[in-house]
């Protein structure tokens, strides 16, 4: 007895966390060793995005799902979004016009007569499926899809879901958390139906969820978590209150979530998972555009931050003066980059309905704080199923959710060094063949950028 105790104190037992972590590292490193021992041509082949197979897997799902999907019967707008958005990232629109009409028709049947979308026809409206349905319709695009959304009633639904704490309830009598805040605010913003009543105290709720670690939890007291952190950060950005978050602490937590596997974990000491390529990785393009806020919080002057070094990194040398955007970007500059103390009051003048568009025009003062190349490697080498679809990690199975968020994260990585989302990245920013390039997204909503612009034009033409 005494001896075994002595033994165990000399050789500390491996804990469950360590055991699981080492098993995953082992799987991942095996893949990387095989990769690095391969010839140049084989490496290119291994890094290739299996575009056609992913498209086939996605198209099949759009047309038919097996009985095992009964457990997702209250998530059908989500299934639609995961698939349609993945296809759009791959540059595929729904090829056949009938299918597009069918999608619009089906989602209309999920729309509640009093506003909002449920998980299927006849189900209670729910904020998360409303977000999924709205993003799906924006991704499908066109007059018919966009005008099928009843914005007046959707606005009333959002307002009904508002609770006293400032947060939102997922559905009538549902759970109140940061996901609910994000899905409500994202939808309100992109549909141009945001107002002070909706925004009231949302920031307070999100702030109460920032933990001692720096990340954001689902509700006050809970553990910092990648999904909620993205939702919280994006929510605050969308309501123009991100300066209230402790950003240095947030960034400190976030950068450490990218592990030796190349991918991201969702929480401290948890395992890597491909879907966090977006939930964690997607926070970086937001942070890139928040340089002035970060510097303000750190007490660093606005002049100095321009000298932040990206030495040793060949960032793409793109023309500052993109003629297409000259007008808007100089306007945006006036808005977002006033020198000195007038900044805070200027920022508060930004109209809530313009934030999504103006956010894109902001200067990117902070270089990407993630390791973009190794994250791409993790997604391409460890998450791809050769037959189509992407997954959480080696030994797991593919699904539409992970396909959507692995691809979203991959798109973020590919475009993160570009000075403007409208210009194609230089070859060095893309791991594998250049044909791996995906469409860029709007980082606040996670819809394809072109589709965002179309929707923005459509909905800004009509105030409620």
């Amino acid at each position, binding site marked *: 007895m005494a001896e075994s105790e002595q033994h165990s104190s000399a050789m*500390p037992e491996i*804990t*469950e966390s360590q055991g699981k*972590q080492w098993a995953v590292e082992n799987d991942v490193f095996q893949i990387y060793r095989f990769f690095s021992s391969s010839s140049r041509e084989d490496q290119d082949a291994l890094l290739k995005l299996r575009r056609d197979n992913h498209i086939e897997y996605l198209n099949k799902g*759009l*047309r038919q*799902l*097996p*009985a095992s999907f*009964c*457990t997702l*019967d*209250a998530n*059908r707008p989500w*299934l*639609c979004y995961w*698939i349609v958005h993945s296809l759009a990232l791959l540059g595929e629109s729904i090829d056949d016009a*009938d*299918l597009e009409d*069918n*999608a619009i*028709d*089906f989602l209309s*049947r999920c729309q509640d007569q009093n506003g909002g979308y449920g*998980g*299927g026809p*006849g*189900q*209670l409206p729910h904020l998360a499926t409303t977000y999924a349905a709205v993003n799906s319709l924006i991704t499908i695009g066109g007059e018919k899809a966009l005008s099928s959304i009843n914005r007046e009633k959707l606005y009333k639904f959002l307002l009904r879901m508002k609770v006293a704490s400032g947060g939102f309830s997922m*559905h009538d*009598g*549902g*759970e109140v958390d940061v996901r609910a805040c994000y899905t409500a605010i994202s939808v309100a913003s992109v549909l141009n139906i945001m107002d002070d009543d909706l925004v009231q105290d949302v920031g307070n709720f999100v702030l109460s969820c920032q*933990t*001692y*670690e*720096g990340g954001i939890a*689902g*509700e006050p*007291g*809970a*553990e910092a*978590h990648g999904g909620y952190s993205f939702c919280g950060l994006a929510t605050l950005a969308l309501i123009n209150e991100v300066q209230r978050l402790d950003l*240095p602490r947030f960034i*400190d937590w976030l950068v450490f979530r990218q592990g030796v596997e190349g991918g991201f974990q969702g*929480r*401290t*000491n*948890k395992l890597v998972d491909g879907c966090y390529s977006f939930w964690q990785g997607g926070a970086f393009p937001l942070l890139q555009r928040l340089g002035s806020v*970060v*510097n303000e919080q*750190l007490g*660093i002057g606005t002049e*100095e*931050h321009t*000298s*932040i070094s*990206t030495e040793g990194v060949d960032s793409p040398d793109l023309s500052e003066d993109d003629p297409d955007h000259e007008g808007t970007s100089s306007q945006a500059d006036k808005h977002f980059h006033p020198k000195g103390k007038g900044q805070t009051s200027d920022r508060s003048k930004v109209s809530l309905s313009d934030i999504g568009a103006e956010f894109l025009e902001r200067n990117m003062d902070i*270089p990407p*704080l993630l390791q973009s190349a190794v994250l791409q490697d993790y997604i391409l080498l460890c998450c791809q199923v050769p037959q189509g679809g992407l997954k959480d990690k080696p030994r797991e199975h593919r699904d539409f959710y992970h396909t959507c968020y692995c691809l979203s994260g991959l798109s973020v990585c590919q475009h993160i060094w570009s000075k403007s989302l409208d210009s194609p990245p230089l070859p060095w920013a893309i791991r594998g063949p250049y044909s791996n390039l995906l469409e860029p997204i709007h980082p606040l909503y996670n819809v394809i950028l072109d589709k965002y612009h179309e929707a923005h034009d459509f909905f800004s033409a009509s105030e409620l």
Partner: protein
Amino acid sequence: MEEEWIPFRRRVEWSDVNPVPQDEGPNPIVPIAYKDEFVEVMDYFRAVYLADERSSRSLSLTAEAIRCNAGNYTVWHFRRLVLEALHLNLLHELDYLEHVAGDNPKNYQIWHHRRWVAGKIGADATVKELDFTRKVLSLDAKNYHAWSHRQWALQALGGWEGELDYCHHLLKKDVFNNSAWNQRYFVVTKSPFLGGLTAMRASEVCYTIEAIETNPENESPWRYLCGLYKDDTESWVTDPQVTSAIIKVLYMKANHVFALSTLLDLLCHGLKPNEALKRRTFHTNARGIEYTYDKFPFAKPTKYELPSPI
């Protein structure tokens, strides 16, 4: 033993109900190849839901619908309406939930429903909720829903007395369990019996530094340590225990990333490094701090003076 399932249309007690099929249109997208049983249960569910029939047969029907898909929040919502109308003993509902949760420990709806039920029962549910979450956490010590529920139960129902010991128990089992560290922070800051963060700081710092020194590669206690000084930057920067822990770790490994990152944070907040610290860090290994700068490039501008290597 599973009894043979009898279709609703062959059950006498349902003969008065007309099932309502799902209106998904002629060519739905993401169509699911439902099994016959699923279709029938849901058709009858829609019938009672639309008729708003809050009866005991509706209650048992919701249980069948939940068995088909525990993620259907509309069914759960309706079940709550029925439970309220029938004034049943809700303790049975907790037993039912324990049964359902077995297969679905990560299902939002089940946990949300459980919170509603336990909230209705009140203080009588305290022990049950703490025992139940303990059971779930014994199978998966990082289950996010279980932890959220437990925190809710502590705040709404009470039962704080044993919570710090419980955290210690879990950390002894797996000191890398960040959820247990987070719960520890929750208890230390929120328990009505412990006097709050300031009263607990001294003993917590000792506990945490011991965990760091035993296992410097464990990020959780490093973050926890910093959290213990939240809103008290002055103590964070001046507490010699913190810097001496860092020095100890750097002595073992000069480019230890958590130690350097913590040091950088202290410097950013105004730490004036003493001789020992200077010698340990910048003299022996400048690469470590460069690495940290790679991760925090915006921290590089001159808020503080880098001490020159000795």
